[in-house]
C-alpha cells in the first residue's frame, strides 16, 4: 500500500472515529454538565468539554493505535462529570419540562400535611434516612399538572387514570400531583390505598343510614383526620346548605360550619362514615357554586370493584361498593359534577391474585369499573429514561445512600441500570445493598 492510499484510509478512519465518539456523546454529556448557575443549558453551551479537546488533539496524531488509546481515555474521562440531579424549583405550580428528571425537595410541613399516610413504605423509610422528602419531576405527573392548570372548571370533572408496570412510580406521580393541588389551593380528597378496606377492615358495622350497607367507622375517622389536616385552611367559611339529622338530639343545622361535621364524625365514630358522605355531598354543592375546586385522588381505584374479605349473614363475600365509604367515593368518580378533577391510579396489587396479569386500565378495572370511569384520560407511567436513571443514581450518591466505590464509576452505574432495567422500584432495591 503506498503512502497516499494510507493517508486516504487514515482520513476515513479518523472521520469514522469522530462520528463514533464526538457527535452523540458530546451532545448528551454537554446537556448533563454540572453548573452552579440556575440556567444550566446556556452554561453548558459555553463550557468547552475536556472530551472535545482531547478528541481534537487526537485528530493530529498519526498512529492509529495512539488515536484509539486517546479516544478511549477521553471517553473514560468524559463520563466522570457530575450531572445535574436536583432543582431548586420546589413549587410544583411553577415546574415545567425544563425540570424533568430532576429531584425537588418537598417542604416538611407539606409532607406532614398531605402524606400522613399514602407514600410507599420503602420510600418513607428512605426519606427518614435522607432527612428530606424528594420527588423526581417526571413526565406523567407534569402532564396531569399541565392539564389541571389549563382546565375549564365549568365543564364536568375530567378523569385521569395513571397506569403502568409495578414499581414504575404511579403512587409517587400521584403524590406529585397532590402536592401541586395543595400549592394551587385545591381541596384534596385523597384515598391512599382503599384496597386495605377490602382486605383488612378494622371494624365493620351495619350502616345506621341504609340497611344492607356496611360502615367502616375507624377507616372513616382516619380519613376525616387526614382530610382536616389537608384542607382545614380552605374550608374555614364553608357552611352546610341543608340540615342533617343524626339522631333525635344530634343534628347538623343548615348554615353551620362544614368543619363541625368533621369534628362530629371524629367524636361520634358511629356516624363517621355518614359524615364522610355528607362532606362529599356538601363539597360537590360548594364546588358547583365556584367556591372551591376539588381534586379527587384515589390510589388503586380498581379496588372499588373487587370482592372484600367480609361476609354477610348468608356467608357470601361482600362486594366493595356495599361499604358505604366506597359507595360515597364512587359517586365522586362520576363526572356529573363540575369545578373539580379526578386523578386515579390502577394497580394490579389491588386486585385478587388471579387478576394481576396485565397493567392496562380495562383489564384491571373490569367491564363495570371501566364503564363507570369512561371517558377518562389514560396516562402511562413508564420506567425511567436513561437521564432519569442517572439522575436517580446521582441523587442516591449525594445522599450517601450508595456507598460502594464501584458506583462512582461509569461502569458501576451502568451495571446498576442494567440490573434494574431502569424500573424505579427495582433501581431502589438494587441500590439498597450497594
Amino acid at each position, binding site marked *: 500500500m503506498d503512502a497516499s492510499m494510507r493517508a486516504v484510509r487514515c482520513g476515513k478512519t479518523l472521520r469514522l472515529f469522530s462520528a463514533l465518539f464526538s457527535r452523540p456523546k458530546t451532545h448528551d454529556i454537554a446537556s448533563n454538565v454540572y453548573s452552579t448557575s440556575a440556567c444550566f443549558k446556556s452554561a453548558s453551551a459555553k463550557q468547552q468539554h475536556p472530551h472535545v479537546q482531547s478528541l481534537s488533539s487526537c485528530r493530529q496524531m498519526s498512529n492509529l493505535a495512539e488515536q484509539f488509546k486517546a479516544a478511549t481515555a477521553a471517553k473514560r474521562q468524559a463520563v466522570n462529570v457530575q450531572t445535574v440531579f436536583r432543582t431548586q424549583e420546589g413549587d410544583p405550580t411553577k415546574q415545567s419540562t425544563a425540570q424533568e428528571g430532576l429531584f425537588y425537595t418537598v417542604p416538611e410541613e407539606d409532607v406532614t400535611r398531605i402524606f400522613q399516610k399514602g407514600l410507599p413504605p420503602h420510600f418513607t*423509610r428512605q426519606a*427518614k*434516612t*435522607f*432527612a428530606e422528602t424528594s420527588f423526581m419531576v417526571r413526565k406523567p405527573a407534569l402532564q396531569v399538572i399541565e392539564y389541571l392548570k389549563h382546565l375549564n372548571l365549568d365543564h364536568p370533572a375530567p378523569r385521569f387514570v395513571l397506569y403502568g408496570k409495578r414499581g414504575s412510580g404511579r403512587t409517587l406521580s400521584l403524590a406529585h400531583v397532590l402536592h401541586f393541588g395543595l400549592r394551587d389551593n385545591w381541596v384534596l380528597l385523597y384515598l391512599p390505598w382503599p384496597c386495605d378496606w377490602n382486605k383488612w377492615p378494622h371494624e365493620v358495622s351495619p350502616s345506621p343510614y341504609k340497611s344492607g350497607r356496611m360502615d367502616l367507622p375507624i377507616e372513616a375517622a382516619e380519613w376525616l383526620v387526614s382530610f382536616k389536616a389537608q384542607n382545614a385552611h380552605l374550608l374555614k367559611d364553608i357552611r352546610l346548605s341543608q340540615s342533617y339529622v343524626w339522631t333525635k338530639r344530634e343534628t347538623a343545622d343548615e348554615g353551620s360550619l362544614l368543619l363541625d361535621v368533621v369534628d362530629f364524625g371524629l367524636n361520634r365514630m358511629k356516624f363517621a362514615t355518614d359524615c364522610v358522605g355528607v362532606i362529599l355531598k356538601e363539597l360537590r354543592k360548594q364546588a358547583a357554586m365556584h367556591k372551591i375546586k376539588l381534586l379527587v385522588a384515589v390510589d388503586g381505584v380498581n379496588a372499588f370493584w373487587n370482592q372484600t374479605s367480609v361476609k354477610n349473614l348468608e356467608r357470601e363475600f361482600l362486594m366493595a361498593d356495599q361499604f358505604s365509604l366506597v359507595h360515597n367515593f364512587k359517586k365522586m368518580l362520576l363526572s356529573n359534577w363540575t369545578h373539580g378533577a379526578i386523578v386515579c391510579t390502577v394497580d394490579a396489587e389491588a386486585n385478587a391474585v388471579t387478576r394481576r396479569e396485565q397493567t392496562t386500565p380495562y383489564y384491571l378495572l373490569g367491564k363495570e369499573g371501566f364503564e363507570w370511569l369512561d371517558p377518562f384520560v389514560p396516562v402511562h407511567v413508564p420506567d425511567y429514561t436513561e437521564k432519569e436513571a442517572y439522575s436517580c443514581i446521582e441523587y442516591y450518591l449525594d*445522599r*450517601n*445512600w450508595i*456507598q*460502594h466505590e*464501584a458506583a462512582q*464509576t461509569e*461502569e*458501576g452505574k451502568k*451495571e446498576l441500570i442494567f440490573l434494574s432495567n431502569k424500573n424505579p422500584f427495582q433501581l431502589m432495591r438494587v441500590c*439498597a*445493598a*450497594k
Partner: protein
Amino acid sequence: MAAPCRNCSSLISKFHSLALRQFLPVVTQVRNSQYNPYFMEPIVDKKQLEQPLDESNPRRFRPIKAAKTEQVSSSYFDPLAQKFINRIMKDGRKSLARDILEKTFENIKHIQVEKYNKATTPEQRAAIECNPQAIFTQAVENCKPVLVTTKIVKGGVTYQVPVPCKPNYQLFKASKWLVESCRDKERKIPMEKKLAWELLEAYNNEGKSIRKKQELHRLCEANRAYSHFRW
C-alpha cells in the same frame, strides 16, 4: 463396558466411605471436590483478566474450573460476602440467604446514614463509617480467633490443646459465630435486622460473637500448659 465398571467402583467407594465414616469419624473426608486438584480456580475480576499471562504461567497449560453461579464479573462482587451467604443458608435456600444479607446491608446503611445526616460537625461525620461492605469485612475480621483448641489423647486422657488457627478455619469460625449469635436472639425479629445489629456491634469489638471469641481465647490461655502435646 466402561460405564458399569465406573458405577461399580463409585458404589464401592461410597460404601467404603460410609463405613469408614462410621468407625473413623475424624479421618474420612465428607465431601470431595468434583475437580481433580490439577484444576485451577477461575478468575472473575475483570481487571485481573485484562492483564496478560507470561509464557511460564501455569494457567496456560493447566485446566481451569468452571465459574460457580455466584462468581460473577460484576464490579460489586465480593467473595467474602458470598462465603458468608453460604453460612447463613439453611436447606439450600440460597436466594433467601442472599436476600437476607442484602437487606442486612440495607439496614446497616439506614442506621449509619441516618446518624451521618444527623451529625452536625465534620469531625463527627468523619467518625461514622457508612459503607456496609467495610463494616461487614471489619466485623468478620474482628471475630476471627487466633487460637483454637483441639482434642489430643495422651495416656488415655483427652486434653484440649491450644493450636494456632488456620485462615480458612478462622473465617469459618467468625462467620459461624456471627450467624449463630443472631439465631439465639429473639425469634420474631427478622434475621436481617438481628444480623445488622450484630455486625455493627462486632465492628465496634462488642457483642455476642466477640464474647464467644474471647471465651475461646480464655480457654486456650487456661490450657497453655498442654500446648506441648501438639507434637
